[in-house]
């Protein structure tokens, strides 16, 4: 059942991605990319990664779509008829894609208990986090406590992004010379 859902959602994502490529109406493209993110979030739920799904739904499907719509207010609604698709580009994309797919063959099977990722620090977090940190949600413990440095860095990145946007785009009050 889960496999069927996986296939249906992945299929819908492929359709959405192709539609984004073909469509010239930028409003539809923005909406479709939001739908693509929402389907990605559904996939994360199926993978039991609810925290990631939550973020994807809020940021990918929500804020990113709104930002694209905000940009659409500044540009024409229709994409300009562009140049012909180049063969070299097609070749590069196809080659990179097949390399990536080839590389996945080396990855451990999904849910394999012997996969390296399950033998590094994860068992310790699962075993000791309740006694060491407390919260029943281990994701929160890892994010805020064990990996506190990472999260501090991420917060700083978001801070810097907002500062950058303000510096580049905001029209501040100019002082008269």
């Amino acid at each position: 059942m889960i496999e069927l859902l996986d296939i249906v959602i992945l299929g819908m994502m492929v359709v959405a991605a192709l539609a984004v490529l073909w469509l010239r109406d930028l409003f539809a493209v923005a909406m479709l990319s939001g739908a693509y993110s929402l389907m990605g979030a559904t996939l994360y739920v199926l993978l039991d990664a609810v925290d990631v799904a939550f973020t994807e739904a809020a940021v990918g499907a929500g804020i990113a779509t709104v930002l694209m719509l905000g940009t659409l207010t500044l540009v024409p609604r229709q994409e300009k008829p562009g140049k012909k698709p180049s063969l070299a580009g097609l070749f590069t994309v196809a080659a990179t894609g097949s390399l990536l797919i080839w590389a996945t063959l080396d990855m451990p099977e999904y849910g394999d208990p012997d996969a390296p990722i399950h033998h590094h620090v994860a068992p310790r977090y699962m075993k000791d986090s309740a006694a060491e940190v407390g919260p029943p949600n281990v994701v929160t413990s890892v994010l805020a406590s064990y990996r506190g440095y990472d999260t501090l860095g991420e917060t700083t990145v978001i801070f810097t992004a907002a500062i950058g946007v303000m510096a580049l785009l905001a029209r501040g009050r100019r002082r008269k010379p």
Partner: protein
Amino acid sequence: MKEKPILRVGTKFLIPFILMFALYVQFHGDFGPGGGFQAGVIFASAFVLYAIVFGIANARRALPAGIRRLLLSLGVLIYAGTGVLALVEGGRFLDYSALAAQPVLGQHLGIFLVEFGVGMTVFAAMTTIFFVFASRDPSAREQD
């Protein structure tokens, strides 16, 4: 959008629930999915919705640039400050166990503060980016 009563009333009805849900996600992140990052984005989405329906100028009045800038930097400051506080209390940087008499209590307090900081910065960053983008619209020129 003065001539769309259903949209306006619907939005006014929805916004308190969105804000409430954001607070729930913020403070319930220890127990369920969620945390400062998601909560900040959801809290910001309420203001984005307000700006879309009632116009960017009104949204700016509800959330002035000064407050946004204050929250933006205050969030990072709270996060880093929690780390420094742990240093002062005799632990290592961001070692929340040093914050209270019992390590687990300290961890709880530390995570609460840190997530609060993350939520604050994310909220301010998202609204700022949206407001700045939206005000580039020539029909809504307004000073930031």
